[in-house]
């Protein structure tokens, strides 16, 4: 048995007195595409942010590719990892945000090159070549020298995906990648994600696109109030939800 790509053990996170994650357990195998759905405020974004340690959980553990994220463990005690080690872990986990967060002072190709140059120390010429390839892969070769403000939302999100892919991650996290887009631009982004899934990338996708979940997802997780209420194969779960809360939520979004 190989180690799973992601293993989450009784993950808890609160902000002050607000408990946002209340014990999340989850195992994701290599190459799986897991879609996460749930009402607003249920803790989906917080879960993703705990996976690459942008948020520090109060309890529980996250393993990516068998490696404990954010801490080293000795004799049952956790110590925060040194910055450099944590950065290495984040490098291997790509993250795509709802509002893109492209670097506005850099062109599309420079955005994709940024991590290669600033993190991996790749030379400018090599970085440019890799960035050009990646932009081509997301269908934006002709927009390489545009600044983010000159691109449509869908184009910006595809640049953001290319920017993450440049780090050669083993896991990609998507936090509502299409929710900020005009409906006619959603398709292009989903198409890129579909191709990425087909290439064998392990992906966790927080989304309201049930079509994508059904078609591309291997596994569907329904969250509410910081807990996983129900999970399973997308078709089954969408067709016959077992819990009232799942049913109530799905009836609203479908």
């Amino acid at each position, binding site marked *: 048995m190989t180690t799973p790509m992601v293993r989450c053990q009784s993950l808890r996170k609160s902000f002050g007195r607000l408990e946002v994650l209340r014990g999340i357990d989850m195992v994701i195998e290599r190459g799986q595409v897991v879609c996460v759905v749930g009402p607003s405020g249920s803790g989906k974004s917080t879960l993703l942010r705990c996976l*690459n340690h*942008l948020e520090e959980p109060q309890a529980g553990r996250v393993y990516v590719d068998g490696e404990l994220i954010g801490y080293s463990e000795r004799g049952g005690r956790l110590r925060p990892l040194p*910055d*450099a080690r944590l*950065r*290495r872990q*984040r*490098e291997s*986990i*790509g*993250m795509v*945000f709802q*509002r893109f*967060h*492209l*670097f*506005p*002072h*850099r*062109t599309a190709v420079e955005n994709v090159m*940024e*991590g290669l140059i*600033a*993190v991996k120390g790749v030379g400018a010429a090599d970085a440019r070549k890799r960035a050009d390839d990646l932009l081509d892969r997301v269908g934006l070769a002709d927009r390489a020298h545009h*600044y*983010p*403000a*000159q*691109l*449509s939302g869908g184009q910006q999100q595809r640049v*953001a995906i290319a*920017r*993450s892919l440049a*780090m050669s991650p083993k896991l990609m996290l998507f936090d509502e990648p299409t929710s900020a887009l005009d409906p006619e631009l959603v398709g292009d982004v989903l198409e890129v994600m579909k191709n990425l899934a087909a290439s064998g990338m392990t992906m966790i996708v927080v989304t309201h696109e049930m079509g994508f979940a059904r078609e591309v997802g291997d596994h569907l997780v329904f969250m509410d109030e910081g807990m996983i209420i129900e999970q399973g194969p997308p078709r089954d779960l969408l067709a016959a939800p077992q819990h009232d809360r799942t049913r109530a939520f799905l009836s609203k979004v479908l």
Partner: protein
Amino acid sequence: MNRSVDERDPAAPGPASAGPAGPETPETNRISHPVRPGRWLAAGVTALVLAWLGWSVAVNPNLHWDIVVAYQFDRVIMDGLRVTIQLTVASMAIGVVLGVVVALMQVSDSQVLRAGAIAYVWFFRGTPLLVQLIFWFNIALIFPEIGLGVPFGGPKLVTWETNALVTGFVAALLGLSINEGAYMSEIVRAGLRAVDPGQQEAAAALGMSRLKIMKRVVLPQAMRIIVPPTGNQFISMLKTTSLVSVIAGADLLTVAQRLYLTNFEVIALLIVASIWYLVLTTVASVGQYFLERRFSRGFGVTVPGTLRGRIGRNLRFSGSTR
């Protein structure tokens, strides 16, 4: 959100060939603007007043234009000009560095660093610069010797006499730059706060170190906010250096004053100095314009206003924060 980057000067030729213009669509819209008699009247009066002012200044026998011409490039004046430029550039350079350091202290997680930064800004913004300058000039009255060694009254390795160390120029530099640092830190802090926190997150998710995030992601974006007020500070500093005349600073205004105390050409020498201040602020305005253009790259907006309008605005003395 996507503002066009093609915003051009309306006077510039538009992209006439862009798009298939229908046969009945004219190339440019001919709009007949209504005549505004009030505006014409105001313009006429303004022109008249300006002409009258210019004429009365030009022919006024009390202004001694021949003396102005004679002293404009005088050696002593040129030395003062050099000191003014040196003081401005050095104080601004130190002030900007101090400002960045103190701003980073203010946004740090450490309470002690934050408290130190707040105390610094509170003190140096809260007391008049003139007092600070006189204070630095007379620092020897409080600390007659300055030494390197164990603090809190321990033994010293080396000591210097303060009066030898803190010359008029050094006192001026200390006063101006430390005061400037307090103002700059507020400007830098505003710039840092203007950058979307999502930027830091995206960079951190790529695996960038804090230092790199600051240097490559946050500061370049903050610069767009920081540069315009910093340009104003620079221009203001050119004029503020004249305050060091109270501590015998040998700057442009001080040397002009020394000259008129011997030859009594008060007005002529003040005009000489003012002409140089105007030249300096004009040059600085041009520099500011190009810096702003450089740092607004990617934001889809062109620097507002023309170069000419910018120079005019910067000459106003009301821009001074002191």
